Structure formats: structure tokens, C-alpha cells
């Protein structure tokens, strides 16, 4: 696992070196901050994906939950009152957490396949976001909220701090706590974990709620960056997030996951996108490149036993 992560880190650095040679603005402080800022949304979702997939699950609803929680938050808040920002934040986060918990209860309690439950939630949350907002983006958010997306503290954009701080906490949670160990144990062998006395239901509710919460955080960052809550935002983000987590060494069949890996995976995608934009590579080619990196990473991983299929 460690070898694999060293490897993808090397891939990330090689990509950086390549783009640094081809573009003289790539390795400027401003651009590095750009990359981290641009990665923060997908990065948060990828962290969630590492937890859920590592525990043998899957969450396809996070892109929709981003939009749904953001829209719900701004719709309930009274227009530009002083309390509106904390209220919006609270409602956003609560919405994501709650929707995720519903996913988790259905998957853990009713023993339904995660793919199907979260696919359903993908559709439900998107639909509700469109219904609540009447299909129209809500423009002009309160100043305090916009500051979260556009503001800087000590020269560092707030989304970057949120991304790195969340990553730090999540890395400890997954790698150093009983919660993390048990989650991965469930992903490795659910029956054995159950026999060992791990309360599967409680863990699944918590894991999907966590994924929903991270999606809501991503939704808050996304809307505050563009100063609009858009019901159609975050489409297909779930796939990008899953891609990032897998590049980062999370095994799609569960049992193995790494938060730091997922963050590196998200950064690889961010660097690719940023670098190719700077190089003026047409958008079509960028999609091809992302696909190649995903498949290449999993191929390397399989050789190192990270992405090995369970027997």
C-alpha cells in the first residue's frame, strides 16, 4: 500500500515537472493555489468515497447531494439577515448528513445494494433540488457565505484550508482509530466483521452520513465560490470523486482505502486539468487523459496487490 502511494505521489510530481517545463506559469504560487482551490470540491468528495468504498460500499449520490444541500440551505434562509449565514451552513450540512444517513439505513438495515440505493438518491436529490429552486439558480448569496469560497486568510484561499484540514482529520479517522479499522474490516469481509461483533448497521449509517456531510461541505464551497446555488451543479462529480479515490489506492472491492491517497488522486486530476488548460489542450483530449491515468494507476496497483480482486 505504501509503495503504491509513493508511486502515485511520484506520478503526481512527474506530472507537475512535465507541466512546469511546458508552461512557465504552472509552478507559480498563484497557480499552485489555483490547483488546490479547484481540487477542494472534488477532493472532499473523494475523501468520502475512500471511506465508503473502503467499507465495501459505493455512494453515487454525492454530486446530487452537493446541489441538493446547497439549494436547501439557501432556500430556507431569510434574505440577508445577520443570522442567515450560520443558518444556511447548518441547514446545508444537516441536509447532507440526513440524506446520507437515509442511504446508510437502507443499505445497512434493509440490506439493499449500495449501487441501487445511492443511484435512487442521486435521482431523488437532483429532482428535489430542481423542485425547491424551480429549476433556476439562486444568485447573489450573503457576503459572509461568499467569503467562504472566495476569501483568503494569510494568502491561502479558505477552500484550500477546508480541504487540507478535513483531509488531515479524515486521514487520522480512517487510519488511526477503531472506527476506521472497523470500517475497512467490514469492507474486507462483512460476515466476519459481523461475527466479530462489529455493529454493521450503525457503521453503515455513519459512513454514508459522513459521505453526505462531505458532499454538503463540497456544495457549500462550490456555491460560495461561484456566488450562486445551482440545482444542476455537481453533475457527474461522483464519478470524478470515485476515480480520484481509486487512483489513490482505494480498492473498489473494499477493505483497502487511504484518505491521503484519495487526496493525491484528486490532485492528480486537478493538476491534469490545470496543466492541460494552461497548455491550451482542447477539452476533448483532457477527458481521454483522465481515463488513461485511471486505468494506468489501477494497472500499477494490481501489480502491487492494491487493486487485486478478492478471492
Amino acid at each position, binding site marked *: 500500500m505504501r509503495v503504491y*502511494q509513493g508511486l502515485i505521489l511520484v506520478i503526481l510530481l512527474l506530472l507537475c515537472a512535465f507541466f512546469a517545463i511546458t508552461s512557465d506559469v504552472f*509552478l507559480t504560487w*498563484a497557480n499552485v493555489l489555483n490547483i488546490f482551490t*479547484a481540487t477542494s470540491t472534488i477532493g472532499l468528495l473523494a475523501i468520502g468515497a475512500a471511506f465508503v468504498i473502503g467499507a465495501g460500499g459505493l455512494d453515487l449520490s454525492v454530486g446530487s447531494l452537493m446541489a441538493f444541500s446547497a439549494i436547501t440551505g439557501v432556500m430556507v434562509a431569510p434574505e440577508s439577515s445577520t443570522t442567515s449565514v450560520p443558518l444556511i451552513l447548518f441547514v446545508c450540512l444537516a441536509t447532507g448528513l440526513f440524506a446520507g444517513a437515509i442511504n446508510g439505513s437502507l443499505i445497512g438495515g434493509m440490506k439493499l445494494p449500495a449501487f441501487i440505493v445511492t443511484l435512487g438518491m442521486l435521482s431523488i436529490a437532483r429532482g428535489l433540488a430542481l423542485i425547491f429552486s424551480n429549476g433556476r*439558480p439562486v444568485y447573489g448569496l450573503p457576503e459572509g457565505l461568499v467569503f467562504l469560497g472566495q476569501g483568503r486568510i494569510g494568502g491561502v484561499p479558505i477552500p484550500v484550508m477546508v480541504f487540507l484540514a478535513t483531509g488531515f482529520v479524515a486521514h487520522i479517522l480512517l487510519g488511526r482509530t477503531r472506527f476506521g479499522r472497523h470500517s475497512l474490516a467490514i469492507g474486507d469481509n462483512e460476515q466476519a466483521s459481523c461475527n466479530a461483533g462489529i455493529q454493521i448497521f450503525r457503521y453503515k449509517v455513519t459512513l454514508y452520513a459522513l459521505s453526505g456531510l462531505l458532499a454538503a461541505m463540497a456544495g457549500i464551497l462550490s456555491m460560495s465560490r461561484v456566488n*450562486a446555488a*445551482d440545482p444542476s451543479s455537481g453533475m457527474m462529480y461522483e464519478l470524478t470523486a470515485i476515480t480520484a479515490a481509486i487512483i489513490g489506492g482505494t480498492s473498489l472491492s473494499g477493505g483497502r482505502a487511504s484518505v491521503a491517497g484519495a487526496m493525491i488522486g484528486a490532485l492528480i486530476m486537478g493538476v491534469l486539468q490545470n496543466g492541460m*488548460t494552461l497548455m*491550451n489542450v482542447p477539452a476533448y483530449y483532457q477527458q481521454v487523459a483522465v481515463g488513461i491515468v485511471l486505468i494506468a494507476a489501477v494497472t500499477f496497483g494490481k501489480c502491487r496487490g492494491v487493486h487485486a480482486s478478492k478471492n
Partner: protein
Amino acid sequence: MNKIFLAALLFVSLLTLATPTKAEQGSIAALISDTSNPYWKTLENGLRDTANTLGIQIDISAIQSASDAEGQLNQCESALLKNPKAIIFAAVDAVNLGSCLRKAAAKGIALIDIDGNVDQQRAEKMGVHVAFSVASNNVELGEKAASYLNGQKGKILVIEGMSGSQPGILRVKGFKDNLDKGLTIVASQGADWDRLKAADIVSRIVTQHPDLSFIFAANDTMALGAVEALRAANINTVKVVGIDGSTDAIKAIKEGRLTASIAQLPYLMAKEALEKANQYAKDRKPLSFEQYVPILTLDKAVFEKNNEALLQYVR
């Protein structure tokens, strides 16, 4: 693991400090929408060809889905680093580029809207001065559609776009305001720019009004949906007019399935936007905000005569 991660961060930041900032002077950046849509692909081609003709460097960024407001903001931030003399942008919505354009404005970069997606007053309020906007006049697109039908008599079905969409509202307004008395609108319904929804509306209305003579749809996708519904209902007496001049629509017109389309000319739009942006970046001579691009009524006769100068911009 943590150590490797930290070391990597340190490595990147060191490199960062070691690299001096250099900027490419004199290029123009263009932020456009989703190029899997032929309209934007044509516009992209127009930008590239014009840049070649003018001998200037252009950096075009396209987003991967038409609603990816955040992705476009990221591209705008990247574009800014190259210090372009002008940014031509087709914003996903009225405000998503706000923070980036404010920085651009502060750097003295000329800002030019393409395709008319910017709200000038809102932009000014955000501290963003947009020099001018190069776009089709949506009211005129509707008016031309009405002119095409004027002089005839009969019942019309109007298919509107997405509710709340400004271009859709203006096109329908232009159409209705310019329509002759002899033509009666029997229904005006929204189909969200969607082919299938338009087809459903048409199927419903032709049962209700078997004597329907005309259909006006606020874009070609819906017009083509209407054409399919008419064919399914075995009706060939209804004339259908759309807007946009899309590749599909042109094919349908040549084959006699669609009656007419009022074409926007994205290639010409790109050409004019880039030429004007280049000029403005040089001399800063103010232009009036609305820079309308010519539009063209396309029907079978126009293609058969083939003597319309603007046809060269139809792709």
C-alpha cells in the same frame, strides 16, 4: 505516509518559490461553454481561424458540461495567470465568474462577453466592467421567425424554451409582438429546450386542433421534436420554424422535413468578437454595449439559390 505527503508538499512549494513568474504578453483568452454542443464547437473553430488570420495567440478553455460553473471559474483563474490583454467569456451564469473577472478588471484586462450571457448591471455592481457584448439579438431572432410566416393565415402553436431562460423569453416576445393579425396563436407552451417534451406537446395540440397550420419553436431541438411528432401523427401540412440554424436543422431543411430556421452564426460571432476584442485591447475606443451579430433566415429556397453572402458562415 504522512511524511511522504508532507515532503511532497514541501517539494512543490520550494519549486514554486524558485520559479520566477513570467507572463505571455498579448494573448487573448476565451472561456466558452461545452464544445460537445456543435454550436460551441463552431464558435471555437471561428475563434481559432480568426486568431490565425489576425496572427494572434488565443487560449481557448471549454467546460465539460454546460452547467459547470465552478469548472469555468477554475479555467478563468488559470487564464488570468497568462496575463492576457483581453478575455472573451461566455459565462455559465450571471455571476459565476464574478471574483475572477474582478481581478482581471483590476489588472486592466479588457473583458468582452460573447453570446450575451452577462447581466451588465449586475456585473457593474460587482465591480466588473464589461466593455461590450457580442451576441445575436434574441428579440430579432423571434421577429424574423414571425416575418417568415407573416402574410399567411392560420393557427399557430408556440413552443417556448426553459421557463425563466432570458433568451427564450426574448425570442418568444419578439415573435409574438411581430406577428400578423391573420395568424392566431392557439397555444403557447414551454418544452424546456427538450426534443421529447416538444414532441409530446405537438402530439397533444394536433389532436386538439386538427386544423393547426404552423409551429414556432424557440430553438431547433424543439422544432425537430415537433417535426418528429407530426410525422408520427402522419400530418404533413404543418409548417415548422425553429431558431439556431443547428447542423441537424440544416439537414432537416434540405430534406424538406423542417420548413425554416432563423440561424445564429456562431462562427461569425466568434470572428467579430475576436476582431473587436483585439481592436479594443489596442485602442480602448469604447463601443456601444450591445454588438449584435447578423442572423440569417434559412429555408430550402435559400440553400437552392445559394447566393446569400452570410451562408459562408453556416457550418
